[in-house]
């Protein structure tokens, strides 16, 4: 018995993620049935719409791209005990800075111009993140408030910029277009997909490497798990937190920069449907593993693309897909609930070491 339960405890994260995903889908089937819709039809449409053709596959990857970035950004903060709800604002900063650089005609070859825009976006996002870290370290300001507040401030400020000083000709609140050379190239002609997804995957690999293999990663873990012990061991806790926030913000900034240089082609007011917050769900589904985040991003991207297709093909409200997403997040983060539901919960629970993170 005990051996069995041990094995369940150990192998769980992936299995649990899978099981909870399936469970979320089953539960939403039930809800759909209750609302009088045909779930099998709905899911076949979603799958077709997200994976069924090159077009839908590329759309899925386009949707996945920002989610991977923001998932990574949130996760990096969390590792250092910081709940970075400011990913959205940091992403806006990165997007705005990158758009500014990108739309300014510079005597540079396109690729360098693009690189410069991305780097500036990363710096912009990173600084926005570091500001949170600074307030935390210097004044002990709780990051949940500071990020919430800076989100409002940054988003409003960007909105101001695109409505007044940086507004492009015309009736839309947006900046001028980024010069053609500084846009990310398309991966397949005729499709919207750009190299952005590759950058996202690279970012995930880099994050994985940094967290597992470097001194910074080690210090982040120590600080995240026991700040006092880290301090005693000569680790500069404040510095590590600042760096973690800088890193997290930089990833968010990269998200924004990549977005404006690919899908957006310019900074458009309200370009984000809350990518920053979706990142939290993505990180949750991936149980904070960088590679998992790629997969989770793609899964959520597929759901979103599928939702649009569902929207096209049927009467079923797209909110169903949001319900599925929410259920996935909740179930995935509740391995104990899953165990209880699938009955693997016979014995252990009390005192059992919680699953390795």
């Amino acid at each position, binding site marked *: 018995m005990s051996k069995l339960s041990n094995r369940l405890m150990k192998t769980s994260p992936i299995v649990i993620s899978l099981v909870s995903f399936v469970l979320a889908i089953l539960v939403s089937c039930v809800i759909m049935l209750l609302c009088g819709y045909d779930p099998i039809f709905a899911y076949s449409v979603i799958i077709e*719409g997200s994976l069924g053709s090159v*077009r*839908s596959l590329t*759309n899925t990857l*386009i*949707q996945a791209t920002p989610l991977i970035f923001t998932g990574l950004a949130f996760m990096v903060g969390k590792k250092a005990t910081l709940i970075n709800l400011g990913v959205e604002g940091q992403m806006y900063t990165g997007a705005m800075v990158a758009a500014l650089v990108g739309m300014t005609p510079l005597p540079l070859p396109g690729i360098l111009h693009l690189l410069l825009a991305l780097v500036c976006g990363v710096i912009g996002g990173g600084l926005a993140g570091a500001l949170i870290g600074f307030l935390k370290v210097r004044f002990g300001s709780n990051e949940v408030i500071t990020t919430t507040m800076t989100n409002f401030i940054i988003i*409003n400020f960007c*909105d101001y910029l695109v*409505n007044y000083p940086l*507004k492009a000709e*015309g*009736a*839309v*609140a*947006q900046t001028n*277009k980024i010069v053609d050379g500084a846009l990310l190239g398309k991966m397949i002609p*005729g*499709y*919207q997909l750009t190299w952005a997804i590759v950058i996202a995957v690279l970012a995930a690999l880099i994050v994985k490497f940094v967290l597992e293999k470097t001194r910074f990663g080690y210090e982040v873990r120590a600080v995240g798990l026991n700040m006092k012990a880290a301090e005693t061991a000569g680790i500069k806790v404040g510095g590590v937190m600042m760096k973690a926030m800088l890193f997290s913000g930089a990833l968010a900034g990269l998200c924004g920069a990549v*977005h404006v240089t690919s*899908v*957006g*082609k*310019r900074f*458009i*007011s*309200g*370009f*984000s*449907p809350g990518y920053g917050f979706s990142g939290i769900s993505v990180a949750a589904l991936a149980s904070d593993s960088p590679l998992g985040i790629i997969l989770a991003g793609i899964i959520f991207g597929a759901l*979103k*693309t599928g939702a*649009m*297709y569902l*929207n*096209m*093909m*049927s*009467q079923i409200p*797209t909110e169903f897909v949001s319900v599925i997403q929410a259920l996935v997040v909740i179930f995935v983060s509740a391995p104990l609930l899953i165990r209880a539901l699938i009955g693997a919960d016979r014995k252990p629970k009390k005192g059992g070491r919680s699953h390795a993170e």
Partner: protein
Amino acid sequence: GNGGKQGGTDNNGGAANTGDKQLKVAIVLSTGGLGDKNFNDMSYDGLTQAKADFGIDFQYVEPESASDFEAGYRQFADAGVYDLIIGLATDQNDALTAVQADYPDQKFSIIDSSLELPNVSAVSTKWQEQTFLCGVYAGLGTLSEMPKANADNVVGVILGMDNPNLRSGVVGFEAGVKYVNPECEVLTATVGSFNDSDKGKNIAMSMYNKGADFIQHIAGASGLGVFNAAKEADRYAFGVGGNQNAIEPDYIPATSIRNVNEMVYNEVKALVEGTWTEGVKISGLKEEAVGYSNEFSNVEVPEDIAAVIADIKAKIQSGELVICETEDELDSWVSSNQYTK
């Protein structure tokens, strides 16, 4: 109103019917999606009407943000079965431009935009003409004997979000007010959200407390709070978009109408009748596409005001009066344009 959406796209049945040459139309809605009782709902109603009248089939997609427009267009264009793809509003210009290049043979219509592209029909509307007549109404009403008006010469406009489009609605309203009542003070404020009805209400209340008696909202669902405030303060508020007068018929004297449904309907009609052409078409007060409506309102328009409104409407339709478009032009426009019988 709407609500009768269930009769819209009947997917399962639709698939069976496609044997004959049923026309297929697709629409990429604006962000905010269905249920906004405005742009999106009205477009939907237009298509529903077209479906009933011409037996077309239509499908729609509700993008979550501006980032999803292009994907929406491409999904439809790629399917290759749609005779016309309709888009809404200038913020889709970029997406449409990108997609049109890849699908040069696909017909597109875009409502409320003046995008010039091959095979694209753009129906351009004028915000300033939409709100102007309600502005006139407010300018005259605020000093009138209307039961809920007061002696202060103050009116207001409330925006959902501050963006260039909605600002030209403000300009139109303010121009209307000052055209007939140059001394009138026009308060403006922004909610910062299209869904924050409570804040909309609070802002409206503070305007009413400052002496305003007519408020034009351009604030989506936040505007519902404005109506509520009108009721509570016993003042007036104008609707916007679809006819909203029935929501609070005793407090909403009129709506600054925009007949998006008709514009959409007309595009489909042109398609059916084979008269669809590319190019920019203007849809303003003259075309009766935007303007003033007091249908369904219980508020009685004083006869003199009604007469003036009718008179001004005629002037605009005849081209005698051209309304300014931006804040910068407003002051000089007002000083050079004053209403005289």
